[in-house]
C-alpha cells in the first residue's frame, strides 16, 4: 500500500518557470524524502527532510514539511528541460526504516 499521495498527478511547464509538487501522508514519520525517476538515470534520491525540520534547500530544490497537516511540498526553481521526470515522495516511519512511496507526479518541462 502507498502512503503518500502526490498532487498534481501531472504538471507541464515552460523552461525557466517554477514547479511545485505536493505530497500528503497519513501516519507519523521520522523523515520524508523526495526521489526523481527518469528513463536515463533510474530512481535518484534528491533531498531528505526530518520530522523536526520545516524547510530545507538543495540547489534549485526547496522542500517544506508541515507535520501538523501531514504534508510536504517540493519546489523546483528555474526549471530546465532536464528536470523532466517523475517525482516521488517517500516517507520513513517513526520506528522502522521502511520507505513508503507515493504514486508520483509526472513533470514535463518544455523548452
Amino acid at each position: 500500500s502507498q502512503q503518500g499521495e502526490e498532487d498534481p498527478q501531472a504538471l507541464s511547464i515552460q523552461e525557466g518557470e517554477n514547479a511545485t509538487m505536493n505530497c500528503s501522508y497519513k501516519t507519523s514519520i521520522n523523515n520524508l524524502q523526495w526521489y526523481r525517476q527518469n528513463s536515463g538515470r533510474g530512481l535518484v534520491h534528491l533531498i531528505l527532510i526530518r520530522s523536526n525540520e520545516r524547510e530545507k534547500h538543495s540547489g534549485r530544490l526547496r522542500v517544506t514539511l508541515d507535520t501538523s497537516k501531514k504534508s510536504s511540498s517540493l519546489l523546483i526553481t528555474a526549471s530546465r528541460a532536464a528536470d523532466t521526470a517523475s517525482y516521488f515522495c517517500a516517507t520513513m516511519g517513526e520506528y522502522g526504516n521502511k520507505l513508503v512511496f507515493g504514486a508520483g507526479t509526472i513533470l514535463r518541462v518544455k523548452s
Partner: protein
Amino acid sequence: EAGVVQSPRYKIIEKKQPVAFWCNPISGHNTLYWYLQNLGQGPELLIRYENEEAVDDSQLPKDRFSAERLKGVDSTLKIQPAELGDSAVYLCASSFDGRGGSDEQFFGPGTRLTVL
C-alpha cells in the same frame, strides 16, 4: 564508485515459467531492498535485508516469490511460477545502515519483467 547493479535489464517469459533477478549492491552497504514498481505507481517494498537476514518480508508473496542474500552481499529474487500480474519493474536498492545511519537509498536501474 559503482552503483547498484542489476541483471538482466529486461526479461520476457511466458506465464508459469520461473524467473530470477540478480542484484549487486554498492560496496559496503549492509542493507538491501527489493521493490516492485507497477506502471504509473511508486515502488513498493517486497523485502529488506540487513546483512544476510531478511528483517522485513511482510509484503513478499511467499507462495511464489523467494529471495536470498548469501554472504550478505549479492541478492537474488525469484518468481516461480510467474503470473501475468507479475509484469512490472523490479528494483533493487541498498543503503549503508538501515537503522538510520543513512536513510538515503541508492537504486539500481531495475529489471523490467514482461509475462506473456
